[in-house]
Each structure stands twice: as structure tokens, then as C-alpha cells.
């Protein structure tokens, strides 16, 4: 278990302010935040690359705040792989064991093992510069895992990869986590990643932890305006998707949402509040999703208003709709008023 107490670090451009977190053994913990939130420096301070200005870090009840990185047994993987370009893949993966003065034979055995696990065995004699981003990142993960770290820190490991590669590697991360049973702290700015990988997550902004909870809690009940904004909140559902005639119909508990993304099975669905149209009368349009509901709350956020519309049956959480102040005034909307919400099948994001 890793426990962080009131950690602060100021590096000028990036900083941490009074960060407290607890990550359990074997947990997959996500840290979500925008660029410049201080996510990387949080990981680097946990790894011991930077010394904390104040606060303490405990690993399995041992205070590691002042011990150097090499004695912490915490692994680190950066977004840009940072493989050593002058070493072969084999020597890259074995680098850490060489520091520990492990015998050559044992290093070879462990490197083979990790290379198999990360599916890079066929690349062992190549140099990193000739490999694809996905391959390099898998090698970087193998290089960290060979040390059998108590905690593995991943700094946006999927951000530099194309969508397909990222999706595959995400699946592999999940598998590796279940095999190795190492606690992972994974930093990202993708809420999809956070949702799919994390058993718990923290939202970070301006060097501070804004909220901690399970992904569901955080998405359902963002505890700050920032978190709500950042998560593009509302309109996140879980459901069963059935694909029929080039259109997917997703049962999210009582109602069916139609999506242009043809992904069958158990899925998550999100619809951006800006993509939903609100009207006082039912409108005829090409949009495939239209529901009648009641306005439950209205939040004035400057030029944009966020309206929560409860469509009753089945779904226990309201749809969040964002409209401009002008259209809000024109339609004369009030809490409790009846409205129709409409959105296109192509606006339904499925993952």
C-alpha cells in the first residue's frame, strides 16, 4: 500500500499542493487531469526523482520520502518511452537487473520471461530506434516490470500512440496487471482510459487532488465545477448494444439509445451535453434519438447554461444539456417544465 500525506512540490511551472492519496496493494489507480495539472510531477515525486518540499510518502508503512529512487522499488514508464537508444531491446529490459548485479543467466531468463509476457520476444536483438511506438512502449513496460516493483507508475503511456495501438495496449495493461498484481498508478487525460482501466481514480487540477473515488462515482457526481467540466459530464451510461442493419441500439436500462458506432455487447455510452438539442415541442428531424422529460435543475455557467432533464422511466439519472443563454431565454425554460431532448445517432459515443 502506498500512502501520500500532504505532499507539496514546487518546480515553478509545475507544482503539487497538499496532495494526499492512498493506493491499495494491487490496485489499478488512475489519475485524470488536464495538461499542466501536475500529474507527471506527482509520479516523479513518488518515484523519488524530485524530493518533496513537504509531506510524506509511505510504501507499506515504511517512510520513503527521503530515500533515493533506486531503493524505493517503484517503476516508472514515461509517455515518450525513454528507451536507451544505444542498447538492444534485450539490454534495455535487463538494464535494472544489471544494476542489481544479478547473474547473466538469471538476467537472460527473466528478460525472456518479460519479453514473452509483453509480446516483444522477436524484437530482443533490435535497437529501439527502429521500432514502432507500441513496441517501444511495451518494452518500456517490460523494463520496469522486470524489477518486480511494488508500484508501477505510468505517465500517459498510451497518449503518444495511434488509437488502435493504444486500444490494444490498454487491453494488455489490464492483463499484465491481473497477472503481475502490481499496484499501478496510471496518469492520463483521457476519461475513456480512466473509466476502462481504473478501479479507483483521482481527478487533479492545478497541482491539487480535486476528487477521489471509483470512476462511476466521479463521473456521476463530480464534486467540483472543474471536474464536471473536465469530464464533459453527464450523459454517461452503461448498457447492452445490439447491432442491426448498420445501426446499434443500446439498452441503457429502460430506454434505447441509437448509435452509429457498431460495437456489440456490453458498452459505455457518452453524449456530450452540447450535442443535445432541447425544444419545447417535439421536433421532426433526422436525429434518431428523441425523448420527453422534465427539467430538474438549471445551472447558469456564464454564456452557457446546463440543464438537467429527467426523462423518467428506466434511467435514474438525468440527461445534461448545454444551451446558450440566448436560446434559453427565447424558449422561456423553467425548472419543472416539460421539454424534448433530441440528439443524432452520430453524437452517441460508444466505448
Amino acid at each position, binding site marked *: 500500500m502506498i500512502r501520500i500525506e500532504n505532499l507539496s512540490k514546487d518546480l515553478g511551472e509545475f507544482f503539487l499542493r497538499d496532495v494526499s492519496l492512498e493506493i491499495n496493494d494491487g490496485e489499478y489507480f488512475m489519475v485524470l487531469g488536464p495538461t499542466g495539472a501536475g500529474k507527471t510531477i506527482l509520479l516523479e515525486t513518488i518515484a523519488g*526523482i524530485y524530493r518533496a518540499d513537504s509531506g510524506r510518502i509511505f510504501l507499506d508503512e515504511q517512510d520513503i520520502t527521503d530515500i533515493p529512487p*533506486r531503493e524505493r522499488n517503484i517503476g516508472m514508464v514515461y509517455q515518450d518511452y525513454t528507451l536507451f537508444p544505444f542498447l538492444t531491446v534485450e539490454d534495455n529490459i535487463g538494464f535494472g537487473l544489471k*544494476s542489481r548485479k544479478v547473474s547473466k543467466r538469471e538476467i537472460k531468463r527473466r528478460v525472456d520471461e518479460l519479453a514473452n509476457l509483453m509480446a516483444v520476444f522477436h524484437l530482443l536483438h533490435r535497437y529501439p530506434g527502429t521500432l514502432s511506438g507500441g513496441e517501444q512502449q511495451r518494452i518500456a513496460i517490460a523494463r520496469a516490470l522486470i*524489477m518486480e516493483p511494488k508500484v508501477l507508475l505510468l505517465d500517459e503511456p498510451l497518449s503518444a500512440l495511434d488509437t488502435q495501438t493504444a486500444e490494444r495496449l490498454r487491453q494488455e495493461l489490464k492483463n499484465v496487471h491481473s497477472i503481475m498484481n502490481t499496484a499501478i498508478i496510471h496518469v492520463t487525460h483521457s476519461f475513456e482510459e480512466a473509466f476502462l482501466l481504473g478501479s479507483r481514480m483521482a481527478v487533479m487540477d492545478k497541482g491539487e487532488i480535486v476528487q477521489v473515488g471509483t470512476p462511476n462515482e466521479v463521473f456521476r457526481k463530480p464534486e467540483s465545477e472543474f471536474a464536471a467540466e473536465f469530464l464533459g459530464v453527464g450523459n454517461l451510461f452503461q448498457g447492452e448494444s445490439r447491432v442491426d442493419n448498420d445501426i446499434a441500439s443500446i439498452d441503457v436500462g429502460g430506454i434505447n439509445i441509437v448509435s452509429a458506432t457498431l460495437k456489440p455487447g456490453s458498452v459505455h455510452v457518452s453524449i456530450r451535453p452540447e450535442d443535445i438539442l432541447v425544444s419545447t415541442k417535439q421536433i421532426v428531424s433526422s436525429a434518431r434519438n428523441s425523448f420527453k422529460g422534465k427539467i430538474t435543475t438549471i445551472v447558469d455557467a456564464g454564456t452557457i447554461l446546463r440543464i438537467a432533464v429527467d426523462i423518467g422511466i428506466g434511467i435514474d439519472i438525468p440527461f445534461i444539456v448545454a444551451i446558450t443563454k440566448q436560446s434559453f431565454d427565447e424558449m422561456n425554460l423553467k425548472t419543472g417544465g416539460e421539454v424534448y431532448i433530441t440528439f443524432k445517432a452520430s453524437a452517441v459515443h460508444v466505448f
Partner: protein
Amino acid sequence: MLKKLKQSKTKIITVLFSLLLASFILVLITCVVTHTTLPALISSILSEEIQFAIKLSLTTAVVSTVMCIGISIPAAYALARYDFFGKSVVNTILDAPLALPPLVAGVGLLILFGTTSFGKSLADAGLTFVFTPLGIIIAQFFVNVPFMFRILRGTFQSINPRYEHVAETLGCTEAQAFWRVTLPMSKNGLLAGSIITWSKGIGEFGAALMVAGATRMKTETLPISLYLNMSCGELNLAIAAATILIIISLISLFVFERYGGFTRVF
């Protein structure tokens, strides 16, 4: 049409200038190399005096280059990686020998090692710099260390510190991370720096002349030999020394361009 003509005129004139400059350099080198006959050149190169000068030049340049590497690696690393009080002043001072005329540097070295108690205590300990080959080495070191320093500083700056960070999470101390990661990644910069420092060391004249003097068969490096033999009319020996200096410069230039093209010296 007129515009096109104008453009090509500019092209012709500028290209002419570049050709003029190139031929000036070429003519100059050819003049030196072809001044004597080939047999005379070869026998001069094989003469005892020139052989001595070649050996002295090579060894002093190698030793001063090693000294430049040894001092520049930690200094350049500090200025590339850390912030400390007075950093910009230190940076400026370390560049100063570049702008200083070598003769002035030589005078300074002569005074430091010849007249101060620091120099005297070194001489008492057996390290005499004035009018000895040691003086040549210290002169080469002083004049050339900024080249090595600047190349290495640039090289270290170009290496993302994250490589060291990762190495530290993989069981390295800071020193091991430098040794096992940063240094191998600096290979090209080190090579380029060594070549330029070494070849400039071979050609060092002014500062070495001041500190070590120009004593035949004692402190006679190739440039000193060129100077001595020119002064007393031994043209063949002078040309031999000059030819060897030209060959060394050309080879160094080639190697530098090949491996050090990415590093900025100035």
C-alpha cells in the same frame, strides 16, 4: 523576363564570390605543398628534427585533449543540468579563452607558473611548466578547453534528463545513471569535441610559444618547428612541418563533419 534575368545575375555574382574564396584557399594550400620537390619533402619529414616535432605535437595534443575531456565532462554537466548561484557568470568566464588572443593567454600562464608562489611550489614538486613540454600541454589545454566544454554542454543539454530518471528507478545511483546512460548517449559529442580539441592542440602556437618557448629539439612542436625553420631559412623543413599540419587539419575536419555536424561550437 527582366526579373528572371535579375535573379540569375545575383546568382552568378554570389556564386562567383564563393568560387573566388574557394580557389584562394586551394591556391594557398597548393603553394605550401608544392613548394619543394617530393623527394626533398619526404627526406625532410624523415629528418630527426621533424620526427621529434611530430611526436611531441601528437603526445602533447593527446594529453591536453584528455585533460580537456576530464575537466569538461563534470563542468559541462553541471552547467547543462543544474541551476546554481552565479551560473551565467561562470558560463561567460568559461567561454572567455575563446575570445582571448593566445599570446595573451600565454603571458598569463607564464606569469602564473613562472612568478607566483603557486607556480613555484608546483616547480618544487617537480612540475615545471616554464620552457618545458608541460608548458605546451597547459597552453593547449587553456586555449582549447572552451571548445570541448561548449560541445559537451550542448550535448548534455540535448539529452532529456528523463533517461537518467528512468535509470535511477532501475537501480542506478546518480553517478551510475550518468555513466551508464548519459555518457554513452553523448558519444558523438565526445568524439567531435575530442577531434576538434586535439587538432587545435596540434596547431597551437601563440600560447605555447610564450610558456614553453621555442627550443629546438626540446619544445619544438610542428608549429614551433615551422616558425623556427622559417626564421633561419630551412625552407624544406618548414614546408615539411606545414604539410603535416595541413594533412592533420583536413583529416580532423573530415571526421568532425562526419560525427559532429549536429553540435554547435559557437
